[in-house]
Each structure stands twice: as structure tokens, then as C-alpha cells.
């Protein structure tokens, strides 16, 4: 029964299924409408859908010209982002794919440059030249290589920076280790007319792999952060947080206080906490079933959101999931997070945010309100109080902007970072020219 019902609901699963059969433009429109109708939500689902779609777009794009490929991805990306600007991960994935293509194109060009000094890339080179000063300023290695006199030495930098930890071998198709033997390896392995698409596709696949593994990678740091007998407060039913806690629960005993995130996420939270999933949420159907914390002997105390302040004085650590992380170290997380973070600050309780790097967005918020999405009012005032809805203005914000000063630590799949360090990870992951594509 469940297997038949899954593809019937529009969502990530049905989209991924249809992606293989539908023509590419239909798929793009399909995803756009899914995003617009919020039938794909949650950062990870959006990211996965985007990555798979781009995979299709790139493989369907019959061109060897990197510029055309970039243009194609940009146009698709623009449409996706326009469809749901508040799902910042969509833009993040598009940016990363663009970065991949650029890296590969540069690789390609570099090889050409080394081999024949061919001037055929002058066209793509001109826009790059414009970007040079800014890139040099931001400390990126690859930005300066155009003007520098020793391209072979600086060339490996973009790839190795990009793949710092998450992508161990983006160049696996190339023989020879990129860092040490790059000049010779590159020259040997590179076929001049090689289609860069193959490598880009590989890179996109790695992004998809990363999306699948990110929670486990983050969870690997759990034992570094949770000590025995701790009282940990968390909020919402974030799988990243759950996996993080589960990993620690395997070794240590602690207590979890779980705020239920009432109008928007409480059912999922209740299901997460108690371990029996009543609602077949998309998250629950697409992700592997996991044990609840209570099964591992962890005491879980479910509280209404209002009791957070009352209990904060007994909490050792606040661990939060997030919707997306901004370059300034602030984050956009489900509504209610901000008061929790603030209450923690007031009580000098450390606030730890666990988030995959893919949620890290180069967006810098000047207007916080634009980041906030408002949700279904009927969650706040039910139909039985319908008469009220005409008279009063009911609000149901889905997200809160949490300023960086309320966060003590970020744990991503790359490790733990101070909020002030995030800009650096952003610049490692996205290329300057893609930030506003």
C-alpha cells in the first residue's frame, strides 16, 4: 500500500522517478512547480532535487563549450531560484555546479594553454579577467592564475580547495595525484578535445553523494561535543540533529529536552520523539528509518516551546538544526529558534548548530524579512475558530533569522567552526562570479 501511494503524491520521490522518463524541460517545469507549491520542502530534499535535475540538464546539454554549459545551468538555476527564493539551498547547489563547470573549464583551458597556447578560449577568458581583482582580494588562488606567470603551480588550488574534505577525488578520471604531479599528470592525461561534461557530471554525482552522507559525516563529530550526563535541548525534528544525538547516544548517556516546534513541525517532532510515525511525512518516507533516541536509553523530555526559558537554566547545551546558514554566520531556522538561542545566550548555555555545508549560503542578509517565509495560518487557528480569522490578523512565520552572535559553534561535515569563520568556507565552496548568477 505505501509503495503505491508514494509516487502519487507530488514530492521528491515522484520527481526523482519522473526525472528519468520525462523530457528535460518538463522536468524543469515540474520541479519549479513543485518548489512553488512547496511540495518539495526541507533543505535536503530541495538540494537533492536540484542536484539531480542539474545532472540531467548537463547530460542533456549537447555541447562541449563550457560557456554554453554555464549559461544553460545559469538559466535553469535562475528559474529554480526564482521559483522559491527562500529555499537557499537550491541556489547553493546551482552555484556549486557552476563552480564545478568553471573549474573543469579552467582545467581544460589550462591544459590547452600548456599544450598549444591556443587562443581559442579568448571568449570565455574575457569575463574571467573582469573577476580577477576581486578574486585576488578574496584570497582565492585560482583567481590570480590568469595573470600569474606560473599557471601550472597555482592550478591545482581551486580543485583541492573545493574538494577540501567533501570531495576527495573530483579529478579521479585524471591519472596522477593532482597536488604533487599536476603538471605532468595533467599533460599526460588530458585529451584536448575531452568533453568536460563527463567530469562535471562526476562532480555533480559527488555533490549528490555528499547530500546523502552529510548527516553521518556530521554525526561523526558528535562524541567530541557531547559529554556524559549532559542535558541537551533541541528543537524541531531535524534529522541531522537526530543522527548527531543518536551517534552520541551509542556511547554516552545524556538527557534530551525536545521543544516541539508547535504549529508547523510538532507532528513530525512527536513522531521523532516517540519513534512511531503517524504521519507519512516525506522526510520519513525518503529517509531510512531510524531508531528514536528513547530506544537507546536516552531520556527524552518533550516540552512545549513556551517552557524553553523555564528549563534553560538546567540545560548544558542547545543543539539546533537549521534551514540555511548565511555567510555572516547567522542562520535561517524554523520559527522559534531565535528565542531559544536567545534564552540560551541569557543563560550562558552554548548553542551548537549542526548543518551540512550545502546549507551554507553566500547570501548576506541586509533585509532579514525577505528571508522569512510565512506558513499556513490554519495551523495556528483551526477551522473551528474560523470566525476569528476574519477579524484578526493571524501570523505563522515558518522561519526565524538568528543572528550570528547567538551561535557559539557550527558543526558541518567539515568539522566545527566559529560563526565568524563561515565566510571562509563560503569562499571555498562558491566562486565569486557565481554568487549572483
Amino acid at each position, binding site marked *: 500500500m505505501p509503495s503505491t501511494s508514494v509516487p*502519487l503524491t507530488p514530492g521528491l520521490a515522484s520527481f526523482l522517478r519522473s526525472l528519468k522518463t520525462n523530457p528535460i524541460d518538463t522536468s524543469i517545469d515540474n520541479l519549479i512547480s513543485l518548489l512553488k507549491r512547496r511540495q518539495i520542502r526541507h533543505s535536503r530534499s530541495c538540494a537533492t532535487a536540484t542536484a539531480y535535475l542539474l545532472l540531467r540538464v548537463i547530460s542533456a546539454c549537447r555541447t562541449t563549450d563550457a560557456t554554453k554549459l554555464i549559461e544553460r545551468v545559469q538559466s535553469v538555476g535562475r528559474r529554480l531560484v526564482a521559483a522559491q527564493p527562500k529555499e537557499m539551498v537550491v541556489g547553493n547547489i546551482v552555484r556549486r555546479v557552476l563552480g564545478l563547470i568553471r573549474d573543469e573549464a579552467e582545467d581544460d583551458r589550462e591544459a590547452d594553454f600548456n599544450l598549444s597556447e591556443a587562443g581559442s578560449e579568448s571568449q570565455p577568458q574575457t569575463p574571467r579577467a573582469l573577476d580577477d581583482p576581486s578574486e585576488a582580494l578574496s584570497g582565492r588562488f585560482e583567481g590570480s592564475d590568469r595573470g600569474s606567470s606560473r599557471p601550472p603551480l597555482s592550478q591545482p588550488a581551486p580543485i583541492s580547495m573545493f574538494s577540501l574534505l567533501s570531495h576527495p577525488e573530483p579529478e579521479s578520471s585524471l591519472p596522477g595525484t593532482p597536488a604533487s604531479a599536476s603538471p605532468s599528470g595533467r599533460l599526460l592525461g588530458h585529451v584536448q578535445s575531452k568533453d568536460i561534461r563527463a567530469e562535471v557530471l562526476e562532480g555533480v554525482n559527488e555533490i549528490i553523494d555528499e547530500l546523502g552522507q552529510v548527516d553521518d559525516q556530521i554525526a561523526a563529530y558528535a562524541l567530541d561535543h557531547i559529554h556524559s550526563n549532559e542535558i541537551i535541548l533541541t528543537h524541531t525534528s531535524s534529522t541531522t540533529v537526530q543522527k548527531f544525538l543518536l551517534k552520541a547516544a551509542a556511547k554516552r548517556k545524556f538527557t534530551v529536552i525536545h521543544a516541539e516546534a508547535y504549529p508547523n513541525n510538532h507532528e513530525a517532532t512527536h513522531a521523532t520523539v516517540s*519513534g512511531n510515525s503517524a504521519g507519512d511525512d516525506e522526510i520519513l518516507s525518503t529517509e531510512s528509518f531510524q531508531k528514536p533516541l528513547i530506544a537507546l536509553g536516552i531520556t527524552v523530555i518533550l516540552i*512545549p516551546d513556551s517552557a*524553553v526559558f523555564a528549563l534553560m537554566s538546567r540545560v548544558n547545551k542547545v543543539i539546533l538544526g537549521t534551514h540555511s546558514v548565511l555567510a555572516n554566520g547567522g542562520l535561517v531556522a524554523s520559527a522559534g529558534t531565535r528565542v531559544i538561542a536567545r534564552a540560551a545566550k*541569557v543563560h550562558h548555555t552554548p548553542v551548537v548548530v549542526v548543518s551540512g555545508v550545502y546549507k551554507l549560503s553566500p547570501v548576506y542578509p541586509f533585509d532579514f524579512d525577505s528571508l522569512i517565509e510565512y506558513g499556513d495560518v*490554519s495551523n495556528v*487557528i483551526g477551522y473551528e475558530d474560523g470566525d476569528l480569522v476574519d*477579524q484578526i490578523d493571524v501570523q505563522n512565520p515558518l522561519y526565524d533569522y538568528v543572528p550570528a552572535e547567538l551561535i557559539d559553534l557550527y558543526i558541518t561535515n567539515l568539522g566545527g567552526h566559529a560563526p565568524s569563520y563561515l565566510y571562509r568556507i563560503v569562499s571555498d565552496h562558491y566562486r565569486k562570479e557565481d554568487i549572483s548568477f
Partner: protein
Amino acid sequence: MANPIDPAQTSPSSTSPPPAPATQQSTPDMSSQQPSSQPPQPSNGASKPAKPPKQPKSKDAPPAAGGAPGEEKLSPAELKKKAKAEKAARRAKERAEREASGGAGPGPNAAPPKKGSIGSGAGGKEAPGQPYKGQRHRRGSGTQPSATEQKKKQEDKNVAVFGHLYGQPRRTTIAGAGKEVHPAVLALGLQMRDYVVCGSSARCVATLLAFKRVIEAYTTPLGTSLSRHLTTHLSHQITYLSTCRPLSISQGNAIRALKLAISSIDPSVPEASAKATLSDFIDNFIREKITVADQVIATSAAEKIQDGDVIVTFAGSSIVKQTLLTAYKQGKKFRVSIIDSRPLFEGKSLARTLANAGLEVQYSLVNGISHAIKDATKVFLGAHAMTSNGRLYSRVGTALVAMSAKERAGGVEVPVIVCCETVKFTDRVALDSIVVNEIADADELVPSQPLKQVTGLPDLTDEADAKKGDSKKGGNKAAANAPPAESTPLPEGSSPLANWKETPNLQLLNIMYDVTPAEYVDMVVTEMGSLPPSAVPIVHRMSTNL
């Protein structure tokens, strides 16, 4: 063994009015044992004739109700088990009795006595004589083996930090309320338990009015004087009320004042005039301390509201409501933003009242605090009590609102104004929300019926069924709508938390109040003027010494 032999511990089996702690101590025992001790009861009821009157003392109706029917369909094996348990119980009882006579009090129970008195506030101290006390106690130890088991299970569901607050569960029926309890008080108790009468002032007024009727119906028994006996008579009512829901600070203050008034009546005054004096006293008290006080507060707090203000308030305080309505009647143009919380949703009725009056109202839940506070210019809060160290003790969530108002990122601080009658001032102090609090039934947090979408997308399974039906050309919508209940993992209409009590390690916590630090409160508007929170103890002393 903190206090090995407390005189209070050994007394219960002795004579008439045992001190309060003992009463409080045995009641929690009682309630936790009730479910287990109930079934065998009818079978040996004849041998212990003292039991029937006590049985209704149960604070737990479901087991009490379920006990009898469960009795009928017992399998032989179960009967045997029961008999065994009874035998064990009898032996344990005998042992306990031997121990009690030997002077060794019920040691393991030494800790609880304070529990109850904290939870029930002022009223608990005046616990009355319990006629059945001794026997109840004996039976309490009689069912020890199963009782400890039950208790362990119960404690597993109690959040450890709040262990001291789990007294007896709230009374669910009026059964066993004692014949002294006046019907008006009986009704009030249940209303308070169900939050029909909710809010500190409302409970205080309702209690006083009920007590007025108690006093009217009261006749002094022979051989005693009104000023002496009425206090004990009222104590029965108070105990009953506190078993329905722990008394509020305002109730405690009012009762204290009333008792003072009773004891100051000259024994030579004829009963009729004494009763008239008391009922005048009650009327005056309500008028002075609450009705007029509210008006004074509303008027002076309304002065603080200016045109164009955005007032944020939390939950549904009656005095804030009055303030806002007063300001609106004065022709001020302002907007109100109500923040509400689970599980009581007190703000809904406030929103409805204000909207009906014509105010511009915005409504959001706790998750929207930071949004609501963004354009706020003032925060008005009601109080359950103000503690002597200037902290605000109010509905849980208030502290979050006050905190957000004080720490708006990059913005100016929003003034936080508390409206509070002086009858809610207490000489108690509180540092955090854990030492002093009230635990409500955690089942209130379990959503009773899931939000069923009336319009919009049909249910997943509905759709699947409908599709199937269509393909079979038997597409009958009504028929397709019926089956889904079976296909979902849990039956429709039950939340994942439905059987949280059986789920190990899972606890639900439903506290009623929290303590807002004094530094978040800029001003307390009382009927004696507007004060800083640090002035609370002074005003409290003034108002109680008058």
C-alpha cells in the same frame, strides 16, 4: 533518610486532626496505589467494611471507574495472581503495622510530606482532620509491593528535575470530597481543574464568592465558637480546592485575609451578625483588591498607551484585556499583537474579545515571538504573582516574551509593563522556574485530534484508495474515504504521542508557570501606583500590614 522519625509521620494512625504534612504525604501514596489496589477491593470488601467510604477518595477516576468492570472478566489465572498479591499485601501490611508499633515510622515515605505543601500553597497548611486517615494509611502500606512498582513506573514519567512538584494528580471527580465540602466549592473545584475558571484573579474571586456561600450556609456546631470552628470548616473546602488544582498566590492571600478576619471576630458576637460581617468582608475584599484595583490599574496602564503603539501581550490576562479595552475606549489608536501558547490557548479568547470590541489584533504563537516583537513598542504582561525579589511569576512563556522585548537585535529595548494587583504579591522568592512551579497533566500536551484538513489536498491514502477505486470503476468517494484508517500505521485520530505513558524513556512536561527575571520588567502597574519590580516587597508589606 533525611528525617527518620518525624512526629508527623507516626501520628496519622492516632487521633483526630493530624498535622498537614502527614495528610499531604499519604495522598500521593494513595493515588499511585489506587489503580493496583482497586480490583481486589470488591471481592474482600465485606471483610473490610471501612473501605467503601475511602475508595472514592481516589484522585484517579479512570482506574476507579475501570476497576469494577475489569473485575468481572478475570480469568482464573488472574484471580490466582490476585489472591497471591493480596496475601503478600496482607503480610506486608502486618509487617508494616508491627514496624509502626515498634516506633519505626514508614521510612521510605519520609521525603514526600513537603511535596504536597509546596504544590498546594497556602491552603495546604490548613489541612483538616481526616477521619479515615489512619486506615487509609494502613491500607497504603498494605499494597506496598505493587505500589512501589506502580510508583516506579509513575516516576519514570516524571521529569527528574521537577520531581518535587509531582504531588498528587489533580482530582478528577467530586467523589470522596467529604461531606463538609459545600456544593458551590465542589463545582468551583472542578471548574478550576478544567480551566473554566482560570487566571489568578478569577480564581481568587470565585473562591471568595464560593466561601461566601459556605459561610452563609454555615451554622456553628454546639460547644464551639464561630471564630474557632469556621476556620477548620473552611479548611475542608480549601483542601478540596487544592486537590483540584494547587491554589494560586492570590487565592492564598485572600484566604489568609479571610481567616484573619474570622479569627478576629469576637466569640460573643451572635452568629448571624458575625456571618454578615464576614460576607461584607468578602465583598469588600473583592471590591477593593480586585474589582476597583483592576479599574485603577487599567486606567493608569491605559495612560501608557499612545497613538500608534503596537502592544504585544502574552496569553490571556484579564487585566491586560481590561487595560487595552480602556485605552481603546479612550479613543487611542493602537495595534495589539497577541502571542499564545500551547496547550491552553488563552490568547484566543482575548483575541476574540478585543477583535469584537473593534481593536486591530494580530495573533501568533510562541514560534512567532521574534516576529511579533519586531515592530512592538510596548509589552503588557499579566501576572500570576510577583515574588519578593521582583520577579514575575506568570504563565509559562512570559519570560520568552519579556526577554525578546529586552534583547531585540540592534533595536531599542521595548518597555515591558506588568499589570498586577497587589493581592498577587507574595513574600516568597524565586530564582528559577523549577523550584516553584505547577505541573499540569502532561496529557494535555497530547493532541487529542490531529488537525484534519477540511479542504485542500485529500489525505494521501484517501487519494490512493480513490485511485484504486477509479481504476476498478467502483469509484465511490464515500467508500474510498472509509478504509484509510487501516492503512496508516497508527489508527486515524491518534497522535504519535497517544501512548507515551507506555513508551519507555519518553517524558512529557507541562509546566504552568515560569519566572521572568526582574531586569526584564520595567514597571509594575498596581492599584497603589506604578513601581519598579524592586518595590514589590515593600508594597507587599504595606498592603498586608494594613
